[in-house]
């Protein structure tokens, strides 16, 4: 269980964290989601002890660790740019934490073998980080962090430097790893799809504050405010109302509550089609339809259609 209470962190004039409180339950996989500069990475570094907060407290499993150095916190940290020890082999990188603790050789050997197996790097133990791909380096970083049996595992944009395909593979793999080990895990990401895909709980942050904490589905269906709604998925804004593109229905004939719009562009995305529309007053919106629906409606560029929201959200300001 990680508890952060009223964390404030300033860098010069910039307030990175403005009184943030977050709880991470034991055994959960929590994502800190937000745009860059929202303070998510700073919060993670405060939990790890890599930054000292200007105010507030951090406790791990009920113990106040606010003044403890990172060495004594028992956290595992995975860095965006891997922070691989360049002059050590994969084996020595993973063994580092155990070597520092002067564990018996047999124990180190057994543990490292186990971990390299877990992250599928057994054949590469004698290689140096420079001889690995980005994805392999990050798996090594994970094994290195897990080697010392951390109370919590903290990942700072761990897949941020990898290409799209590897990112997807690794996050599925991370989810499976978590289901096996149940280590309390926090992952920082700016990618809402990644957060929704991998985490049980998502903490949305913006400008040094927490906007909402909820499971992925609730976050999507019941966003607390405009920021969360537009950050966790595409959204159309019509005056004060917000409509997701898949909640837009297109009709060929007007009925009482519809609005007129013109089809400006049809974008085929495989199974789905995104229809970009423009209204009389010049406002644009997009609708997400299935291929079948588009074919039934026989939509064409320049065609006039009638828009009806099936579900819309208005935030009381």
């Amino acid at each position, binding site marked *: 269980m990680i508890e952060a209470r009223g964390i404030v962190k300033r860098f010069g004039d910039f307030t990175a964290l403005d009184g943030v409180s977050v709880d991470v339950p034991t055994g959960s996989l929590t994502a800190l989601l937000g745009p860059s500069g929202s303070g998510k990475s700073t919060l993670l570094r405060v939990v*790890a*002890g*890599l930054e000292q907060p200007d105010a507030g407290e951090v406790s791990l499993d009920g113990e106040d660790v606010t003044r403890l*150095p*990172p*060495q*004594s*916190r028992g*956290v*595992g*940290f995975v*860095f965006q*740019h891997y*922070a*691989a*020890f*360049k*002059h050590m082999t994969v084996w020595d990188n993973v063994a*580092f*934490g155990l070597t*520092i*603790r002067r564990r018996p050789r047999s124990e180190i050997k057994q543990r490292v073998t186990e971990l390299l197996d877990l992250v599928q790097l057994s054949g590469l133990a004698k290689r140096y980080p420079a001889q690995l791909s980005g994805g392999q380096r990050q798996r090594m*970083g994970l094994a*290195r*962090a897990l*080697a*010392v049996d951390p109370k919590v595992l903290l990942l700072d944009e761990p897949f941020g430097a990898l290409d799209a395909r590897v990112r997807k593979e690794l996050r599925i793999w991370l989810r499976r790893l978590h289901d096996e080990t149940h280590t309390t895990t926090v992952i920082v990401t700016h990618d809402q799809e990644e957060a929704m895909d991998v985490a049980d709980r998502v903490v949305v942050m913006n400008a040094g504050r927490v906007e909402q904490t909820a499971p992925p589905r609730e976050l999507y269906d019941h966003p607390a405010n405009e920021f969360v709604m537009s950050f966790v998925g595409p959204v159309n804004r019509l005056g004060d109302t917000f409509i997701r593109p898949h909640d837009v229905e297109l009709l060929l004939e007007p009925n009482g509550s519809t609005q007129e719009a013109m089809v400006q562009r049809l974008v085929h995305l495989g199974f789905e089609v995104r229809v970009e529309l423009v209204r009389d007053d010049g406002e644009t919106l997009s609708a997400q339809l299935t291929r079948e629906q588009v074919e039934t409606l026989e939509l064409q560029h320049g065609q006039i259609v009638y828009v009806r929201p099936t579900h819309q959200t208005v935030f009381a300001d």
Partner: protein
Amino acid sequence: MIGKYALRLASLGYLAVLLVAPVGFVFWRTFEHGVGPAWDAVTTPDALHALKVTLILTAIAVPANTVFGVLCALAIVRHRYPGAGIVNAVVDLPLALSPVVAGVALLLLYGRGRWLGGHGIVFALPGMVLATIFVSLPFVVREVVPVLREIGTEQEQAAATLGASGFQTFLRVTWPAIRWATAYGVVLTTARALGEFGAVSVVSGRLVGQTESLTLYIQDRYVSFDTTGAYAAAVVLALLAMVTLILMTRLKPKEGTQ
């Protein structure tokens, strides 16, 4: 094409006239009557004593500046504290400052009857050690600082989260990354310490057979019209310089030619 060859000729010609010919000529003059006379000239008691003084100065200045250099580079790059800017600027000063001025400054501080003066500093070995340290001080710092900046702090932070203490982190993570830069700095420091003349000349008092280093000995021999002795001692230092050059080429971070 003609322009290319003209440029090559001009560059190499300049180097030949300025560097290769004079140094080569001294070697030739030293050995024109065989190795015997040269060997005799560098094995006189005064020459051997001068060599010993030079080696003592180097043996003290180089380790001192190496330890200081690494600590100072860490202070400059890894910590923010009041006065860091001044330290950063002052470290470069010995590179740009006349060694004679360094010598005069040391003389005025540590000379007899001065601020920190006392018997046996100036006109003695301790003063020469201080002078040698002064002029060879910046090299290790200057080589290590950019490497420390380049490697950043992520690896050190990773070590900290894995439980390594500050000293363990330095030994296992930071040092392996800066050791070659340190070695290169040590080579430069050694070259400067072996060859220092101006600053040592001011504070030594130049007592033959006592406070005369090899460079001072060369000047002494030359002005005493003993060119054989001067050339032979110069060749000893030139050979040491060439060893330095070879080490520099080996250790230097790859840049310049392909």
